């Protein structure tokens, strides 16, 4: 059986293909089914995650195949409600956007009582915490996975209700952590560096790396547990799709010379994370023109949620962009928003 290829979008550099063996895929599905999902016997899987990506492939293809579970693929139909009227034990494979849909059907989820939601590819949204909170004392269960195309799933935790967010992540049994790089200006935060038998092999190399450092910043929370503090890189995941903000800034500068451009990460209630473009220009450059210049972003880079013209980009005395100041000023810029 040839290795299975998964491409990272190239948003953090040239597109990269990562290869996984069939054994690695099976090991991950088996591990998560046993450790996270309690070896539950599902009668149906409904997947909102595209199978071209690792997460969708694992739980929308491999788990159904290994456990002989019928699967409904709804990755192209994010507004389609899963069947909730027949009591069949169901696993929902969720993206950040799926929770907006589930939030509309909390009573049906409560009545059903045998639904488990698996969440990954980006932070759990406020809607996810809302649903989990409303369904606390029902048969509904929800778990989130942290990982990457390069590492596979690394850690898991329950999706908590609104009042109990911030639960620590627990490493999966076959994952070990190593000391990661120290984050700028915060000795308590380190990048998450892991080793496991499920690391992917980069195309063109003979073997997987011995370990891999993720962009996620973590702090210890007891044996084999950690808190997630944020990301060291300028990566955001727009409904699970990676986007390197520095690369978008480079594209805007190349296509609209003379602009002072900053991409700022913002939270998004539907997609989990998103970004907005802020620019200052010496002349009359219309935000719509800037957006048009980004009309064809390469390699599936998500388009910005909004483009704002500002009088100037606020910076500290050392030249660091004051992102909070930029995003806080957004409502006043509404007329220049596209």
């Amino acid at each position, binding site marked *: 059986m040839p290795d299975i290829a998964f491409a990272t979008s190239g948003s953090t550099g040239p597109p990269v293909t990562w290869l996984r063996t069939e054994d690695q895929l099976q090991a991950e599905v088996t591990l998560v089914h046993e450790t996270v999902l309690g070896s539950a016997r599902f009668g149906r899987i409904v997947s909102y995650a595209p199978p071209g990506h690792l997460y969708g492939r694992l739980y929308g293809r491999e788990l159904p195949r290994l456990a002989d579970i019928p699967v409904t693929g709804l990755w192209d139909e994010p507004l389609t409600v899963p069947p909730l009227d027949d009591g069949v034990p169901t696993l929902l494979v969720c993206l950040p956007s799926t929770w*907006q849909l589930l939030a509309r059907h909390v009573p049906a989820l409560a009545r059903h009582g045998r639904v488990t939601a698996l969440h990954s590819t980006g932070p759990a949204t406020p809607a996810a915490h809302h649903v989990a909170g409303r369904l606390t004392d029902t048969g509904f269960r929800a778990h989130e996975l942290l990982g990457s195309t390069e590492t596979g799933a690394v850690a898991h935790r329950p999706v908590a209700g609104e009042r109990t967010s911030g639960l620590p992540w627990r490493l999966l049994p076959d994952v070990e952590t190593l000391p990661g790089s120290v984050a700028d200006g915060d000795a308590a935060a380190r990048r998450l560096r892991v080793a496991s038998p499920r690391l992917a092999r980069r195309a063109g190399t003979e073997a997987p790396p011995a370990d891999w450092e993720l962009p996620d910043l973590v702090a210890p929370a007891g044996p084999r547990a950690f808190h997630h503090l944020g990301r060291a890189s300028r990566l955001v995941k727009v409904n699970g799709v990676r986007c390197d903000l520095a690369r978008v800034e480079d594209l805007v500068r190349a296509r609209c010379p003379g602009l002072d451009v900053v991409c700022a990460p913002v939270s998004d209630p539907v997609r989990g994370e998103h970004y907005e473009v802020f620019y200052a220009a010496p002349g009359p450059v219309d935000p*719509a023109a800037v957006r048009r210049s980004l009309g064809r972003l390469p390699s599936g880079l998500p388009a910005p949620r909004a483009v704002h013209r500002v009088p100037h980009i606020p910076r500290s005395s050392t030249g660091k962009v004051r992102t909070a100041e930029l995003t806080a000023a957004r409502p006043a810029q509404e007329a220049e928003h596209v």
Partner: protein
Amino acid sequence: MTTTVPSPEEIHDRTRSVLATRIGDAFTDVPSDADLQQALGERYDSLTAMECISAVESEFGIEVDFVADDVRFWFSSVERMVRFTHERLEDTAALGLGS
């Protein structure tokens, strides 16, 4: 108790205002009878449609049922949104459920 249902014209204007906030200035020149997905491309994908549905619900105090209501049809253009919203508000008023 009687509930006054806004006119289709008022619903139209408020709907356009709500959508402009969500979609941005690109929406300004889109005619109300235009198919939003065709006119806006990826700016009106399924997730943006979901945001717009939530915004219309919030603006008019109605509820859209993703199972019973054909959301792909009713939320494909401003005109259809206005018809849907007006009918839903009239139904609500007739049943005496309005606030």
